[in-house]
C-alpha cells in the first residue's frame, strides 16, 4: 500500500511527505513574502505625502477671537461626525478644508468619505441601517427615496432659519419632502450654458446670441459657413447615457413653455407627453437632429449617442465645432492648462431665452441630509448652512482646485471666486431677475429620471419619433 503513494522507489513515504510539505511550505512562504514585499514597496513608492487628516480629538480652541463665531456650537471635543458623498478627488479636498475651522474651534472631528458609487451605496446603507451621519445628496429625487427609508432626520430649526435667510422658498422646497424640511442646500451648478471659443467667434465675426432667435440664426450661419459644424453633442455615460439630452429638453421646456409649465411637468401635474413638452423636444430636435448642425468633430447624428459626454465639447478647442451646451462643471474636462475665460481658448455664454429679458436658469445642487440628530451632527449642519461656511468653501476651492464650485447662498461673496466660469455662473444664479429651476430629471422618480428619460432620449436621438419617445417615458412613470 505504501507503493501507492507517488514516491521514488526506495525512499520512505514519510520522508517524502515531510520534504514535500517543507519545500511546499518554504515555497509558499517565499511567495507570500515576495508578494507582500512587492506590495509594500509599491505602497512606499506611492508618495510620502498624504497622511490621513489626524486632526480632531483636540481640545476646542476656546477663547480666541476667531472662534467666537463657533462658541454657539458648544464644546464637541472627541466627537466625530461622518460624512459620505459622491464627490471624490480633487473636489473633496476643499470640503475637508472648509470644515477645519469648525473642527479647530469645537474640537470635533469630521470624517469625510466618498466614492463614485454613492448613489447606490447610500440607499443600500440607509436600508440596511448603516447610514453615515450626513450625506451630500445631489438629487431631490434621491432625497425622497432616502426619506422613504425612514432613516433621515428632519433638519434642526436653526438650519431652516438659515435657509429662509440665505436661499429662499424655492430652494427650501427642494429639501422638503412630504411637508417636512430635511436638507439644506450646499453647492450649486448652472446648466444653462453654452461653451464656445471666443477666438473662433471673433475671427469669424460671430456674436454671442441674446435671444433664441439669434441662436437659431447663428446656428444657420455657422452651418452654411462650412468651416465647422455649429454644435457638438455627446451623451454617452455608461449606464447614465442620455442624461445630457435631458438637460437640453429641460432648458427648452423652460424657454418655450415657461417655468410654470416646467413645474407642472416635473411634478407630473401634466403628463410627460403633453403637447407643450413635445413642442420643446421638437425644438431641440430642430437643432441636434439636423445633420447640418451636428456632430462637430465626431461624425453624423448617431455619434451623439456614442460620444462620451466628457469628450463632447473638446472639438471646440480644435476648431471643428462651434458650440457645446453643457453645465458649468464641464470646465474640468478641458485639458489642464487650457485658458478658460472671456479672452481664453474657451468660455461660455448664457443659453438665451425667447426674449433678452427672460432669464430662466436650469441648475442643480447638493443637499445636506442627516441621518442622526446628535448635537454635534446638528451643529455641523447649522455651520454648513451659514454664509461663513459658503465663503470658506469658495476660498478653499479657489486655492485648491482653481474654483469650480459655487453656491446659491446669497451670503456668498463673489470676490472669493477666481474662476471666470464660476463668476459667470454666480452672476447668473444670483441675478434677482433669474428664474431658477432645479434639474427636472433629478426631481422625478428614479424610474423616470434615472431610467426611462435617459433611455428615451438616447433612442430619440438615434431616430425614434418625438411622440413615441414621450409616450414611452410617460408609461414608465410610477403609478403609486
Amino acid at each position, binding site marked *: 500500500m505504501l507503493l501507492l503513494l507517488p514516491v521514488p522507489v526506495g525512499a520512505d513515504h514519510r520522508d517524502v511527505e515531510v520534504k514535500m510539505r517543507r519545500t511546499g511550505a518554504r515555497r509558499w512562504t517565499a511567495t507570500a513574502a515576495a508578494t507582500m514585499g512587492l506590495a509594500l514597496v509599491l505602497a512606499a513608492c506611492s508618495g510620502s505625502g498624504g497622511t490621513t487628516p489626524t486632526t480632531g480629538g483636540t481640545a476646542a480652541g476656546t477663547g480666541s477671537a476667531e472662534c467666537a463665531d463657533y462658541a454657539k456650537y458648544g464644546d464637541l471635543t472627541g466627537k466625530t461626525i461622518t460624512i459620505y458623498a459622491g464627490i471624490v478627488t480633487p473636489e473633496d479636498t476643499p470640503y475637508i478644508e472648509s470644515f477645519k475651522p469648525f473642527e479647530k474651534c469645537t474640537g470635533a472631528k469630521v470624517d469625510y468619505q466618498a466614492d463614485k458609487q454613492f448613489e447606490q451605496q447610500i*440607499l443600500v446603507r440607509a436600508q440596511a441601517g448603516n447610514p453615515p451621519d450626513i450625506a451630500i445628496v445631489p438629487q431631490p429625487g434621491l432625497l425622497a427615496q432616502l426619506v422613504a427609508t425612514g432613516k433621515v432626520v428632519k433638519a434642526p430649526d436653526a438650519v431652516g432659519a438659515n435657509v429662509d435667510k440665505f436661499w429662499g422658498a424655492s430652494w427650501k422646497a427642494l429639501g422638503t419632502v412630504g411637508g417636512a424640511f430635511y436638507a439644506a442646500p450646499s453647492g450649486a451648478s448652472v446648466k444653462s450654458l453654452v461653451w464656445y471659443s471666443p477666438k473662433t467667434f471673433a475671427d469669424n465675426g460671430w456674436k454671442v446670441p441674446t435671444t433664441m432667435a439669434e441662436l437659431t440664426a447663428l446656428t444657420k450661419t455657422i452651418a452654411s459657413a462650412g468651416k465647422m459644424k455649429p454644435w457638438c453633442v455627446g451623451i454617452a455615460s*455608461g449606464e447614465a447615457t442620455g442624461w445630457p439630452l435631458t438637460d437640453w429638453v429641460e432648458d427648452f421646456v423652460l424657454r418655450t413653455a415657461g417655468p410654470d409649465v416646467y413645474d407642472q411637468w416635473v411634478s407630473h401635474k401634466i403628463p410627460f407627453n403633453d403637447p407643450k413638452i413635445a413642442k420643446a423636444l421638437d425644438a431641440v430636435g430642430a437643432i441636434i437632429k439636423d445633420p447640418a448642425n451636428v456632430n462637430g468633430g465626431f461624425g453624423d447624428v448617431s455619434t451623439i449617442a*456614442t460620444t462620451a459626454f466628457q469628450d463632447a465639447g473638446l472639438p471646440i478647442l480644435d476648431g471643428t465645432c462651434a458650440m457645446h451646451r453643457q453645465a458649468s462643471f464641464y470646465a474640468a474636462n478641458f485639458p489642464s492648462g487650457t485658458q478658460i475665460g472671456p479672452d481664453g481658448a474657451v468660455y461660455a455664454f448664457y443659453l438665451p431665452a425667447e426674449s433678452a429679458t427672460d432669464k430662466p436658469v436650469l441648475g442643480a445642487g447638493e443637499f445636506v441630509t442627516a441621518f442622526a440628530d446628535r448635537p454635534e451632527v446638528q451643529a455641523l449642519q447649522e455651520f454648513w448652512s451659514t454664509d461663513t461656511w459658503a465663503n470658506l468653501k469658495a476660498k478653499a476651492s479657489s486655492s485648491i482646485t482653481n474654483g469650480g464650485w459655487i453656491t446659491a447662498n446669497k451670503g456668498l461673496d463673489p470676490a472669493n471666486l477666481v474662476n471666470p466660469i464660476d463668476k459667470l455662473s454666480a452672476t447668473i444664479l444670483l441675478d434677482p431677475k433669474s428664474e431658477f429651476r432645479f434639474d427636472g430629471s433629478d426631481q422625478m422618480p428614479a424610474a423616470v429620471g434615472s431610467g426611462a428619460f435617459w433611455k428615451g432620449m438616447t433612442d430619440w436621438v438615434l431616430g425614434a419619433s418625438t411622440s413615441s419617445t414621450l409616450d414611452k417615458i410617460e408609461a414608465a412613470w410610477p403609478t403609486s
Partner: protein
Amino acid sequence: MNVADKFLVMVAALLIFAAIIGLVLFVVALLEKRGARSVGWFFVGPTVLLLVVGLAYPAVRTVVRSLYNAAGSAFIGLSNYTTIFTSGDMLVVLRNTVLWVVITPFVATAVGLLYALVVDGARGEAAAKSLIFLPMAISFVGAGIIWKFVYEYKYFDPTLANNPRQIGLLNQVLVWLGMQPKQFLLNQPWNNLFLIVVMIWIQAGFAMTILSAAIKAIPLETTEAARLDGVNAVQLFRFITVPSIRPTLVVVLTTIAIGCLKVFDIVRTMTGGLYGTSVVANEFYTQSFTAGNQGLGAALAVLLFVLVIPIIVYNIRQLRRAEAR
C-alpha cells in the same frame, strides 16, 4: 488604524479560523475513534452554514421580495413577472442573455483548452500562460477601457482631406483595408457579439488555468502507453486527453455559463445596456439600484435563478454518469 494594526487583525482572523477548524477536526477525529459513521456533516458544516446565511437566505428573501411592489409595501403577487414578460424590450434582453450563455463558454473553453495543451511542458510555460491569464487579472474596469481602444469609432469621409485618425484598433484595420469604419457597439444585433468577445477574452484565462491543472493530472502511463501504440497528436487528444479531463471540462463550461448569466459590468460600462445589448443581469441591476424598483429587480434575479436550472440539470446528469463509471 495603522499598518501594523491592520496586519495584526488579519493574523488574528487567520488564527481564529485555524482554531475553529482545528476544533472541528479534533471533534471529528474523536468521533471516528468512537466509531461514528456520518462525520461528513462536520466537514461540510462550516461551508453550509456560511452559505445558508450568506447566499441561501438572501436568495429566499429575493424570491419573496419579487412578489411585492417597488417600495416593498404591498403584495402584488406575480405582477412583476407579468411586467417582465409583456415588455417588448424583454424579449431582446432574453435573446441576448441566451447568446451570452451559449457562445461564451464554448469558445472560451476551446481557446483555453487549446492553449493549455499547446504550452504544456514547453519552455517558458508559466510566462506563456500568464499572457492568456492577463485579461482576467486586469479586472472589468481595465477591460472596458482596453476594448474601448479596439472598438472606438471616428468618422471617415473619403471626400474630406482631413479625417480624424482612428483610435480604435479594429476600425483602423478596416480603414487600412479601404473600408468604412463602423460603430461596432451601436449596430444591432452584432453589437452583442462584440461585447461577447470581451467576455471570451477574459474567460479564456480561467478555462486555461483550470484545464491546465486537469491536464497535468492525466497519468503519464496512459499517455505514454498510447504514444507507444503509435497514436498521433489528434487521436491522443480525442481519445485520451478529452475523456480524461471531461469532468473538468463540464465544470469549466458550467462555471463560465453561470458567470455569463451574472455578469453585467461589461454591458453596463461599454454600452450602458442600450442599443439592444442589455442582458437580464443588467436589467436586474438597473431596476434594483438605479430605478429603485426592488420588486421588479428581485423578479429579474429570480429569472436568473430559473435560467440556471438547465445548466444544473446538465451537471447532475454528468455527475451521475461519472459516479456510475
